[in-house]
């Protein structure tokens, strides 16, 4: 067991967990942050994507000990401080980028990471950035549209 202390969405959190417990389980079960989803448990679908010290990772592959002292951002941390949706979240809603919604949290974080990097949001660049996140519902076009628009707004 380790005493895991980390910053989740700007707040300090801690838990006593086995060092190899998946970050995904720590978030969902210890902290009740169930927004992060599990679609495969082996790093293939991206449903569990979170930002770990700014990097996009699959929380199902990250052992707790590796997140010691890290800054983690989950879908619950994307909204504005007043709880209203961020520009990216609003655009996902307006453009029809979420259907069943199970890929959405991971997709949002992959998109957020792309926006944070500040690259030019071309169709190809966005698709490249989202390639690790599967969506079975949308066919991706609406997601790509929403991300391009959000990235443009962020660069303004």
């Amino acid at each position, binding site marked *: 067991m380790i005493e895991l202390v980390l910053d989740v969405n700007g707040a300090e959190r801690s838990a006593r967990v086995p060092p190899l417990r998946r970050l995904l389980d720590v978030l969902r079960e210890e902290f009740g*942050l*169930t927004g992060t989803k599990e679609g495969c448990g082996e790093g293939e*679908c991206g449903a569990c994507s979170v930002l770990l010290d700014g990097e996009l990772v699959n929380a199902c592959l990250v052992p707790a000990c590796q997140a010691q002292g890290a800054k983690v951002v989950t879908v619950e941390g994307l909204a504005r401080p007043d709880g209203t949706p961020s520009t990216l979240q609003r655009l996902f*809603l*307006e453009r*029809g980028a979420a259907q069943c919604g*199970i890929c959405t949290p991971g997709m949002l974080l992959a998109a957020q990471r792309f926006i944070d990097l500040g690259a030019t949001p071309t169709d190809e660049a966005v698709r490249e950035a989202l390639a690790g996140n*599967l969506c079975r519902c949308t*066919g*991706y076009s609406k997601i790509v549209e929403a991300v391009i628009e959000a990235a443009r707004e962020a660069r303004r």
Partner: protein
Amino acid sequence: MVIPAPPGKMGPVPLPAPELLVGQSPPRLDGLDKLLGRARYLDDLTFEGQLWGRTVRSTVAHARIVLIDFDPSYDWSGVTRVTARDIPGENVVQLIDDDQPCLAWDVIRHFDEPVALLACADREKLEEALRHVRVEVEPLPAVLDPAASTQVFKHYRYEREAGRLAEAFARAHRVVEGSYRVRHQEQLYLEPNAVCAVPRADGGILLHGSMQCPFYVQRALKRLLALDDERVAVVQTVTGGGFGGKEEYPSMIACHAALLARAAGRPVKIVYGRGEDLASTTKRHPGVVSHRTAVAADGTLLGGEIDVLFDGGAYSTLSPVVLSRGAIHAPGAYRWPACRVDARAVATNTPPNGAFRGFGAPQTLFAVELHMDRIARELGLDPLDLRRRNALRPGDRTATGQELRESVSALEVLEAVAERSGWASGRAQPKGDGPKRRGLGLSLVLHGAGFTGSGEVKLKARAGVELTPTGCRVLAASTEIGQGTITIFAQLVADALGLPLGAIEVAAPDTSRVPDSGPTVASRTCMVVGGTLEGAARALHRRLAAYAAEVYGGDAERIACVGGTFREGARAIATFEEVARRQLADRGPLVIVEQYSHPPGIEWDDDEFRGDAYPVYAWAATAVEVEVDLDSYETRVLRVVTAQDVGKAIHPLLCVGQIEGGTVQALGYALMEEVVHRDGRVANDRLQSYLIPTALDAPPIETILVENRYPHGPRGAKGVGELPMDGPAPAVAAAVLDATGALVPELPITPDRLRAALKLGAAPTASLGETPLGAAE
């Protein structure tokens, strides 16, 4: 907007234009929760005292069970064990033929078949316990090849002008034959199957789960547990995709969880891992479809014989109805002066196949569409012209003898796609002479909206609305699985009542609270259930108008709620809210439930397989441009243009979302998705080995919505859920044919299959000639 007149000062106010919601795209009602990470899917919920459940599965395709051995030396404390012996009712998962046991008892009929169940509070201990159950078996010979199967689940044979078939073949300019093969496809909803069964003090069960059809689950539980309606309630939780994959299989998992929960006296949650879900749940039926067609020199179809063979897997489950839809769609969107369809679904010792978006139609439509391209090649005709010549027109009859009266759009969608895809110039373009070849292909399909044949008549779907103080609550068993059910229901009901969207709530599908609207399948949710709800909302409106006339004075016939206010002509009478509150206080709760019935004149004969197979059809044409790399034999889709007639798009954004999503699933079917079995076991039960399209594989898709209204659908709507799954795969195959000259008669068109077709068929750019069918195997 609602502009309530100040109370007591009712007078003439200018009549606001009704702001109709149908045809607009307001934010989906479940959207914000999903985007903020607040939506609670089954695995996000915790239940007091909950245990985890696991399934012990067979490791052989066919065998007699000798013994289910729970290792006597293992410490079983804290572990609940269940076998078929513990089933209080019938050991069956109720569906159609009821041949599938909930837990195998004497015979195992497929790999990964459930044999026993375990539950434990500690997941690690549970995994360990699983390794201490041994199923001792006597192997039996397994039938894995459907062609070798002698057990027929269902056989349909139907004909149109069969007497003229021989004559058609005798006077044909050409007789064109072809055989086409499709493989298992996995639905791959991104949320794996998940349920939780909670035992109730009265001996009943409350079941929460990710599912499409709560009443299927409820009926299965009642039969298994020998319980009455009162003691089994099923509630759908937020569901992360279904695509047919959560039509029937959740009943099985619910049965398992319920058995464990009753044995343990505590809630039991079963959440499948991806591997278990891939290996053991239903897939799209694989099959072989053969065509023999008599054609005139100008390409006119004279007659056809079509054979369909579907592999149902080990139990019949939904095969009879998947097969009937497949058989009815087998002749495609064309006029057949004479035609015979012979279709069988047979048993093999593989996990049962079942519902998947399209439900038998994508398989047979792939065959007929690629066959059209084969005919065009053999006759030297343009595939577009061939389709134009033979496409069904209003007044024509389908192969089941159905006269197409309304909303018949084959030519309209075809022409729209021909124009927007730049068909003529695209086909004329050189295919390239380097390793990269370009090709353009198209397809034309139809899809019957609603249940096949007498399905709706037998089902008698019900749905209703309940008055609330500020609007109304929709009561329906139709599930939101991402496609937008609750939003379009709210739009339809809001418009019927003259209310804003915010005044409508949609009750969670809970079998103890909502009427049985039937399953959320068959592109029936909007047309059948939406239409029924619209009728119920109109009835509610009439009741309230009558009540308003009574209490406020006026002529009930002339009173209507517009923009949230009841008016008689220009005179505002009272806000909806005032009327609703008063009505509720005066007369108590007001619930109106209506039952669906077919429009007049729809007749279907189950025995003869004749008549109106569906009340109406949706139509789609799809053009696909591909680039084929002759070095790697890889095919890349460059763009898709599709025109789809859905009758009326209630919510255009959601409607296009269905089309884009379905199209990409279909492109996966065309090029990459195939569940591979080895000795009856799913060999690629991981996302590393079962690949679906990523954002990089998905091409840009141009969607043209055609709205050729169906007079009996809500606001003219037909169905859209399955239609987009039908056309892209044959269009891809046609484009590959255009690019390389090779007709690959089998899905998915993998590099191996393309290479084989090229080697055994013709060299690229040469004419097709006879492409050997066995090429792909």
